[in-house]
């Protein structure tokens, strides 16, 4: 997953411009995009009931009588869900409304047991905020755009319908019914598929840092309703369509592209865009109208009379604020400024909370055992993580969560390289053994005698032997062909099975070759 995350970073790198235009027959068109992201709040129990929220349970095994909307059942709100939404709001610099309310959104559908969804329309929990997106991965500060957030409100998820199990029936599973969602509504501030993709990636990163949503898009923990309209640059907003439940960054970008093109074609053919709900079909690469939901647009919102207004006090807000972690942008800047990492490495390491957490564990342990400052071990740690470790994980089809090597083990390996116990090639060799066996670097070095030697006597003896075996090369070298130095280094290292300290070998070779 984290390697996939890194892959997403590379895609962002391909972006070149935010002045995205669609070429139509009548000229250029600008795309206007807003996203409504539904993010499942990380909690043990549901928003208004004590049923569990875990993914993949047996059908209807995580259903309370409240979720099944039995007669006389009443909702009671889950503190943790409110807390996580507040923390998320704080992480995007948003206004937290100390007085909010739950409203009912009324419509009939088989996945909605109550006949209404408890949501927040009139008084949402979180007001306006913003998220900065970067359109240049190499230099994240260079091309930054601020996307406004309209609001975040808390609401219930619906259940799940399955249509393939029976020829004439759909099956209803209520395990998801009542799970807490945050609906994060952006302003129509995005203008290209890339911006939409970068926004969703950044939002996902923030949610994962805060810990308010696991961001697992393939499990439905995060999905986006994509609002798209087109206009001639500078003109009034056009009529928008809403493509529902798009569940990956790539699909969101495709939806924008495909839907915008469709709209341009419709308008240029003399048609009109209808404000409607659409569905993205990734297999066919198209969006299409969801007529089945068209008649249900009069939702008759009103305050839920089963629930009182939600009033938050300062102590609660303070507790939420104090529990916020360092967020991706702040962390990236700190990595650059205080740890001296390159902009690219800082951005890559901070793009996902788990990567940053892993890196910081590696860093802390490295500094501790090497008795150095974190800034002194940071670059070597970052390079090893992003090249050696990521390379190995990619090869093994694993990610940081399932890495055979822990941050502590990595730090030990790096310390052995730093203090000269292991040469670069030896370190790589030890790392391979660590991946295979899961053993600590020190133990491997000890047991397999892979320690680098700086024993001048032993090295001098080997050098003498090599010079004796290669009189021709020696003569050429002494005759001025100094490029042959590398040959002698290679021969020496090979004879010492790679365990000789290269610096010592260099020094002694120079002396011996000089005669």
């Amino acid at each position, binding site marked *: 997953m984290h390697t996939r995350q890194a892959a997403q970073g590379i895609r962002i790198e391909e972006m070149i411009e935010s002045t995205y235009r669609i070429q139509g027959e009548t000229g250029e068109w600008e795309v206007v995009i807003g996203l409504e992201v539904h993010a499942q709040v990380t909690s043990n129990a549901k928003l208004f009931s004590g049923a569990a929220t875990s993914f993949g349970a047996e059908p209807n095994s995580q259903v309370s*009588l409240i979720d*099944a*909307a*039995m*007669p*006389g*059942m*009443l*909702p*009671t*709100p889950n503190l943790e869900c409110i807390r996580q939404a507040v923390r998320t709001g704080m992480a995007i610099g948003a206004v937290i409304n100390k007085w909010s309310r739950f409203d*009912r959104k*009324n419509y*009939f*559908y*088989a996945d909605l*047991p*109550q*006949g*209404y969804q408890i949501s927040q329309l009139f008084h949402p929990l979180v007001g306006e905020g913003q998220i900065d997106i970067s359109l240049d991965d190499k230099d994240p500060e260079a091309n930054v755009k601020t996307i406004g957030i309209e609001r975040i409100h808390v609401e219930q998820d619906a259940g799940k319908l399955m249509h393939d199990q029976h020829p004439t029936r*759909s099956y*209803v599973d209520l395990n998801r019914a009542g799970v807490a969602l945050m609906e994060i509504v952006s302003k129509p501030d995005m203008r290209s598929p890339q911006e939409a993709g970068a926004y969703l990636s950044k939002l996902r990163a923030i949610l994962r840092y805060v810990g308010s949503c696991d961001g697992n898009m393939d499990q439905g923990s995060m999905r986006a309703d994509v609002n798209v309209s087109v206009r001639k640059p500078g003109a009034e907003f056009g009529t928008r369509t809403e493509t529902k439940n798009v569940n990956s960054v790539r699909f969101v970008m495709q939806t924008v592209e495909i839907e915008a093109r469709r709209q341009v074609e419709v308008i240029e053919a003399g048609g009109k865009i209808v404000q409607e709900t659409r569905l993205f079909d990734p297999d066919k690469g198209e969006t299409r109208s969801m007529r089945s939901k068209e008649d249900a647009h*009069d939702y*008759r*919102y*009103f305050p839920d*009379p*089963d*629930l*009182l207004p939600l009033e938050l006090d300062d102590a609660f807000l303070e507790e939420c604020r104090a529990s916020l972690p360092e967020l991706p942008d702040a962390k990236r800047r700190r990595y650059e400024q205080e740890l001296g990492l390159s902009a690219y490495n800082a951005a890559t390491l901070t793009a996902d909370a788990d990567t940053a957490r892993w890196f910081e564990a590696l860093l802390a342990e490295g500094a501790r055992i090497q008795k150095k400052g974190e800034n002194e071990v940071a670059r070597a740690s970052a390079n090893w993580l992003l090249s050696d470790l990521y390379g190995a994980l990619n090869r093994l089809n694993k990610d940081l969560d399932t890495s055979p090597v822990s941050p502590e083990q990595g730090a030990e390996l790096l310390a052995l390289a730093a203090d000269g116990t292991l040469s670069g090639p030896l370190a790589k060799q030890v790392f391979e053994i660590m991946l295979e066996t899961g053993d600590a670097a020190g133990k491997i070095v000890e047991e397999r005698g892979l320690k680098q030697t700086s024993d001048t006597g032993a090295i001098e003896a080997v050098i003498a032997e090599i010079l004796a075996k290669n009189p021709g090369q020696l003569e050429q070298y002494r005759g001025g062909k100094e490029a042959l130095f590398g040959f002698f280094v290679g021969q020496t290292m090979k004879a010492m099975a790679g365990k000789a300290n290269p610096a010592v070998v260099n020094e002694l070779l120079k002396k011996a070759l000089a005669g």
Partner: protein
Amino acid sequence: MSEITDLGVAALRDGVRAGTFSAREVADAFIVKVSKAKALNAFIVETPEHALAAATAADEALAKGEALKPLAGVPIGMKDLFATKGVQTTAASHMLEGFKPVYESTVSQKLWDAGAGMLGKLNLDQFAMGSSNETSYFGNVISPWRRGGGDNAPLAPGGSSGGSSAAIAARLVPGATGTDTGGSIRQPAAFTGISGIKPTYGRCSRWGVVAFASSLDQAGPMARDVKDCAILLENMAGFDAKDSTSLNLPVPKWEELLSGDLKGKKIGIPKEYRLDGTPEEILALWDQGIAWVKDAGAEVVEVSLPHTKYALPTYYIIAPAEASSNLARYDGVRYGLRELADGQNLQDMYAATRAAGFGPEVQRRILIGTYVLSAGFYDAYFTQASKVRTLIAQDFENAFTVCDLLLTPTAPSAAFALGEKSADPLAMYLNDVFTVPASLAGLPAMSVPAGLDSAGLPLGLQIIGKPLDEQGVLGAGLAIEQRAGFTARPEQWW
């Protein structure tokens, strides 16, 4: 010696405790009464086994010398709006016919925990929507009362808790649960010559009570006198974390502290309740009530509740709006009725199920509620009603700066004949004119029987109290009860 079934809750409790009769004798006596009263149609389901089990437990505890529970030996009736585990719970609707909950409502559980037994589930207006018990899918409840002079026209027991009121008046049960959204405890109590109290909104848990209008629904007891109401209420009320609107307050010792002495109390008489067209008899009874509370030591003052005339229209926006949403869950998917013809789709199924499962009054209110919430009308209707509701509550707050309690008639008429008003929904709604304002303000209010009209039918007086002052309401009720000397009872014809 009077029959066991002539005794009330307190007398039965005390008699079982004293060994005057066994709990089993009590249960048997009421079970026989219930079984012989089919003509009243007060019960949808009879549950003699439940009453007998509770009685046996009480007798065994007594035999072992164990402390008896507060309601040991007392069988009661349960309005069929309370979910009872394993016992059909219908809200008097076709929609829920056959529905057996796997859970027990908080209020009924509290009563069983207190040792009470259940004689059966009592009939009511469908989904508690009605003032005459004529909207039940399971047929009208017939009031045990009849007009004097040989007029045998069947009368309404009031509604929506009409099964409760009829059963108590007919001595089929000593007490019963009711629920009150706009007067559904007080008006039927007045119509049948019994007492009933709707406590402060939030005193009794709504968990497990089939919802009508969440911001108004409140459970309460009905019984033959004020003390019995106090005893039952003590065993129904109390904080419930499962109901977000439940009040987290201890339950007062209402029975122990009950006193009809009104010295030092100021009782307000709201002038707006003197409506044009109110029968003279009712106005006269009201005056009589004023004299009684003065006699009990209270000072009487005139007060004004200027927005009274807007209470009913406000109620008939808010209650149907909430109901239209609360009743959306009855869709034929997870429980209850399903109507599905061949080839019909999901939306057809919803429409057919709800058309068949809801009676005309329920449908009417759902339509009104849907209309007032629909796009373009929300502010004009619902928001305006919610604001007027604030004004109505403020009226009461202002009045309570100069008095402790309010005294009014309970209903603008005595019981009417079945069918008399059912053709005109609006005329039926107007029956709640005196009870709805206190519901909108969430205030405790009770009806006590105070006299008979010229046709020999009972009339009630209503006492409304400040929030949480059930004690004051019960006290004034007792003062009136002591002076009214209401002993009339319907002659048995069933």
